[in-house]
């Protein structure tokens, strides 16, 4: 019970949203793309876990409406199933999203942040991401259905037809260009460029924010030591992106949208891109206020707000709290549990190669499998660490200040 209370207390708009988003992602994959049904055991488990996560905030009053909203939307996804890809549903979703955003603008605190010229493009990005993801997945779903029925993909059908470069391509491109130019002009007239004064080393803005595309990295700094969040993880992101073509040699899905044929590849990528990267940018833009504190979307960004700094290391949790003894002096003993845990985590890859993921191991071969598996594990480390922080106030799993090594 204490655990649950602790769990509820640390939930905030952002953490609950993060969990909700992860759940949503799983729901979409299961119900909408893979035609999953609640009847199946796995589906029931999905829904139960998702609903518990989303409604946990019911006990936590400020989260009440948010939780209900999350509950309803997850439930909706489960009942909608593949109908999510009907163009009518898409339109309604868009209307609902835009309407919700527009209504929120009536709130002065929300407006202050969302209508700030710096943040308007990020607001637009939310919609664009949603729209394009939806279109891609819709096409993938339709193609999957075609393939299952033994038919041709839409792309194939299209490439079999002949088309004129002029006017079918160039003309439409030019029209898009003109329309975009109009949008840009009106935008630049309506919203002033957010220029500030000359830089002043003695007066840093509060909050000091990275450029929008790095806000995900800045958010990671909250959960990881700077050398990990600032050096190792970004490097791995770039290296991992470069490695994708060498790891993923599945020839299916080339030139056409499809999900079923490459569910793991697309699923992992989209989770990393949407939930771990884009959502963190959105959090950094709209929900991180002065002193890098969390603020709800309708909350006033009060610079006086204080959050207690009560994070603990895993070693403290185990030695001090659980075993009621002082921390061992020798770090190798002190951090034994943490190091063990890390080793166990890293051991998941070979273990999975023997167990449930043997199929992958055989198909890909050892080098590809291990590179891919470790990239995946590193990626998953982020949400895991985030959840651990929220639930246990966990600062570091391994904290060896003697050699500046913290995980």
């Amino acid at each position, binding site marked *: 019970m204490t655990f649950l209370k602790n769990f509820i207390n640390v939930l905030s708009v952002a953490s609950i949203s993060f969990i909700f988003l992860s759940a949503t992602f799983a729901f979409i994959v299961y119900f909408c793309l893979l035609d999953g049904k609640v009847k199946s055991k796995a589906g029931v488990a999905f829904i139960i876990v998702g609903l518990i996560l989303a409604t946990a905030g019911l006990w936590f009053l400020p989260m009440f409406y948010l939780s209900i909203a999350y509950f309803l939307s997850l439930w909706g996804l489960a009942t909608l199933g593949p109908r999510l890809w009907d163009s009518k549903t898409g339109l309604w979703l868009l209307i609902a999203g835009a309407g919700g955003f527009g209504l929120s603008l009536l709130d002065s605190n929300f407006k202050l942040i969302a209508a700030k010229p710096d943040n308007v493009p990020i607001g637009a990005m939310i919609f664009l991401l949603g729209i394009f993801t939806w279109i891609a997945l819709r096409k993938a779903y339709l193609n999957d259905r075609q393939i299952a029925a033994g038919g041709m993909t839409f792309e194939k059908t299209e490439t079999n037809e002949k088309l004129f470069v002029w006017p079918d391509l160039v003309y439409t491109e030019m*029209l898009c260009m*003109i329309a975009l130019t*109009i949008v840009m*002009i009106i935008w630049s007239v309506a919203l002033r460029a957010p220029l500030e*004064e000359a830089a002043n080393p003695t007066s840093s803005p509060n909050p000091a924010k990275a450029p929008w595309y790095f806000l995900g990295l800045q958010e990671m700094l909250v959960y990881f030591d700077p050398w990990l969040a600032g050096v190792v993880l970004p490097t791995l992101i770039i290296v991992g992106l470069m490695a994708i073509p060498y790891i993923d040699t599945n020839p299916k899905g080339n030139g056409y949208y499809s999900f079923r044929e490459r569910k793991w590849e697309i699923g992992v990528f989209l989770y990393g891109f949407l939930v771990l990267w884009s959502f963190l940018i959105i959090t950094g833009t709209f929900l991180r206020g002065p002193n890098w504190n969390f603020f709800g979307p309708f909350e006033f960004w009060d610079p006086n707000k204080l959050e207690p700094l009560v994070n603990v290391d895993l070693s403290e949790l185990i030695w001090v709290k659980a075993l009621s003894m002082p921390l061992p002096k020798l770090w190798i003993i002190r951090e034994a549990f943490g190091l063990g845990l890390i080793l166990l985590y890293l051991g998941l890859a070979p273990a999975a190669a023997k167990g449930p993921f043997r199929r992958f191991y055989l198909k890909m071969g050892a080098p590809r499998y291990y590179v891919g598996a470790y990239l995946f594990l590193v990626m998953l480390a982020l949400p895991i660490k985030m959840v651990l922080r929220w639930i246990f106030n966990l600062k570091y799993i391994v904290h060896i200040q003697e050699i500046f090594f913290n995980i």
Partner: protein
Amino acid sequence: MKPQEPIPHNYSMRKLNLIFALTSLGLLAGTGLMVGYDYIRGWKWFQLEFNRIQEERIEQELKAKDDPATRAKLAEFDREMREGQVVIAKKRDAYLEAQKVLDEWEGKHYAADQDYRFTKAKLDAQRYVTELSVVQHRSDGREQQKKFADLTARVQALNLRLQQATRDRDAARARVDAYLAEIKKIEDRKKEITASVELLNKQLEAVSPKSKRMVLNLPMLDFINPTLKIDQVVLGDLFIDMNYMSVPRVDRCQTCHRAIDRPGFESKKEAERLAAELKRELDANRIQPTKRAETEARVAELQRIVDSPREIPNPFRTHPKLDMFVGSASPHPLLEYGCTVCHRGQDRATEFGRAGHTAMSPKMESRWKRVKMPFFPGPWDYKQRNWGYEENPFLETPMYPRQYTEAGCLKCHGGQIEVKNGDQINKATHMVELYGCHACHKINNWRFTGLQKPGPSLEGIAEKTYPAWAVRWISNPNHFRPTTRMPSFFYQRNMVGPAVPADERARNIKYQDAEIHSIVTYLFDRSTHRTWTPGPQGDAGRGKQLVDSIGCMACHIQQDTVKDEKTGAVRVARRDDFPLERNFGFNLVGVGTKTHAAWIYNWIKNPKAYDKLAPMPSLRLSDGEAADITAYLLTLQKPKFLQEPMRAPDPNVIRELAKGYLIGTMTDTDADAKLRVMPVKEQMLYLGQRSIEKYGCYSCHDIKGFDGLKPIGTELTTEGSKAAHLFDFGFVHEYEHEDGKHEHIMHNVPSWIYNKVRSPRIYDDERTKPYNDKLKMPNFHLSEEEARLATMVVVGLTKERVAANRLAASDSRMRAVEEERKIISQRNCRGCHIVNRSGRAIAAMISDSNFLPPDLTPQGARAQSPWLFNFIKDPTVMKIRPWLSVRMPTFGFSDHEAATLVAGFAAEGNESQFDTHRYDIPPQGNVAVGREVFAMLRCAQCHSTTSVDPANPPVPNTADATSLAPNLTLAKLRLHHEWIADWIRRPGEMIPDTRMPANFPRDAQTGGFKSPLAGAIDTPAFAAHKAALLPYFESEEALRKTMSDAVALTNYLRDYIWSIGINQMRSAGAGPESPAPQQQPTSPPVPVQTGDRAPAPPVRSARAGSRR
């Protein structure tokens, strides 16, 4: 070839074309929007609006010029012109012939001129070729040289021809002109009348919206030479600090503030004030004759503004202090100083909000913000004075709100005690110095360092007063003396105010009771306990007379109620009911309740015996005088004050608070153990010491055991540059002030500071803080005006710097003056004297200006430094006006201080300190002439010339106040040689209210001096004098000439005065009377400083400075 299969299009072409048409139109509209948005700027409208105002004026002027008389005159000219043409027509043939000849010569001249110029060009080219051939030893060198010589000859010949042609042409032209001469003359006369009209028309063309030049302002054409354009001044050495570099200021303010440097666009109120001022100057004949006409024209112009039905709105108004700022003849011309260096704000901005305008009040700000259409504030808003204002939160130097504008002076004038004509900022800095802001808040600049502590020493408090008084006093000083400078530390808003919950309030009161009692216990425990022998019994009536007459009232007040000027009702007095100078000493009301006879008697006799750094000077009272004054002061009682209930401190609370401090350095258990064995008195002493530290009492008072502690407050050296987000605005936005006024807190630095000084604990409202963390700044009960002035100083203390050559008073002469002024300010000399045209608070007490202390404005030019040095150190060395009852006090200046004062006075008077004429013996003849002139002008009516002992001159007959004047035998020791003659010529100009008559009035026309003796020498009354004078002059004519020469006469008078002067005076501290007799305190003996012979007492200021 197979016929191509028709391929169907993916889209309907018609639809695409339609979309194309629509989007193209949209793009066109978008481009129009972009260009329009870029084109429509607020400042353009302001310029157009200003042009309209100007157009209106010019049209009015044109109308005024278009009167019937002028029209008739022009018609007359036209008629004459026609007549002239008729005359020419009669001689038509001859005229045409002459014209033809002229045309011919014109042609010839043109050709000759061209020939000459072309050949000269060839010559220059040939020079190069020739030189080259010589240098390179070419074979054709000789040939080239010959060519050059030929060309030179040819140019000379052609020049001659050209001259001839010019002469001939001019002659032909003269012949033609002769025919036209009449007409030309008429035309010239006509031009005289029409020129001003043409000028006005030209001006009209420049500003009128109907003018053709407006085409240049059309979009896309306006890059050529538009009439509406941004106006700017580039200020090379007034930098803006961009953190990594300094860039010159580029002030564009006049882009909208069109008439800021142009007189004639004042507001009505301003115009009225200026006109009255100038009229006064004109009436008093203080305007130079050459400028008179100009000034009169200006008065007429101002009067027109006052009479005009419409008010000129801002931003089109003239700067209200054009003679000081922005005006081309002012000390701060626009082209050199711009605007933002004083006002701050964003120099390059041309939009209202971006420029950093800051509103004076929330009401003003909300009016500024109002707009009809978002994104497009325009004329429809400006007319209502709504500017579409958006605060620029990133601007580090927003403009000072108007009520604090003079804060900007401090940037360049921070090294001065007073800024010329800066009445408000001078009062503000003086107030900050006097109230002692600098004591708790370090202000690290020249103006606010090296000052004495504002409060009295508490090292002997037990000798002076009683704990029962001290406790009540600290609890609420204002209650005992409403004008006191001692602020209230206790029972303030954050302790007992409306926002504090009842139970916490009760607890806070207990805590504060305990702190006050502990502080008093500590102070009395650590105080010295000398006993003072009481003086003889005095007479209170005589004492009051003395207090009123000898000068006490220059520094002290003795009333705690005043009659309100507005309502006429009697109310409690405030500090600002009196000049700052009179707030220098404490309010005498209740002094009899506070202290006792023996102390008063000894204190007034010699303040330095009680506290060697006491700012109170000695008035050299005799025993009897001191006794009388003591008797009078004892009658000033506030008996009720000591009868007011006083809560005893709760021992448990004392222990609790003491423990609160102890656990900072030890554990809870140890603290308890320690306190258990500590007697209550000890606990109180401990708590008292910690409380004095907490509240910073030692910052203002000397308290034993607190030497060398840092002042308690935030450093203010660059407070005005601190960004708004670094201030804790707490949760309050508006509040009810203790004096009943409703105050608003705007989110800007000046407003924060204003409310901080006005109600220092206000930002604790609604806060939850532990007792010791609550705000501690005491309440000075500043009035709105005082708070405004204090804020002005604080916001003026910035880190902005200007180039060294722009700093005011940076040369050595001015430094000497400023060092002197600092002492003047610290010793409150202005209580009695006028220095630099201001001061003399005592004048309110003494009705007859003849009995007032002297005006020191020309002191440096007047007095010789050795004399002045002696006199300042010991005023008894010479009595100049022995009939005065006001006394020059003995301040106990050190040699250094006295020398600083003397040097400063000399520098101020632009005079060297030492005078080569000191030992001059004037020629006998001059003296004799001077003596006669002296007699003729009847100087002896007022001035005595009998030699006297300078320290004890006989008191002249005081029955007739008009006959009082200094003994002239003292002049040689005292006055500058040159100054004497100058003074006789123009006493009134040097000291406006002097009694010395102007014997040599100024001539209104020439500005020179007129001699009263001119002509008079021949009258029978002066026959004897004439006879006596004649031997000294070559002729009667020479005598008459001299008698009408004011300068010569005054020089003779000076020589005479020099000849009768005594040469010796006692030096400071050597006389029997000086310094004031000391009353030795009986026990324990303390070292007594006696004037100069004893080691100079350490200066309070020096000590205060070394603490830092």
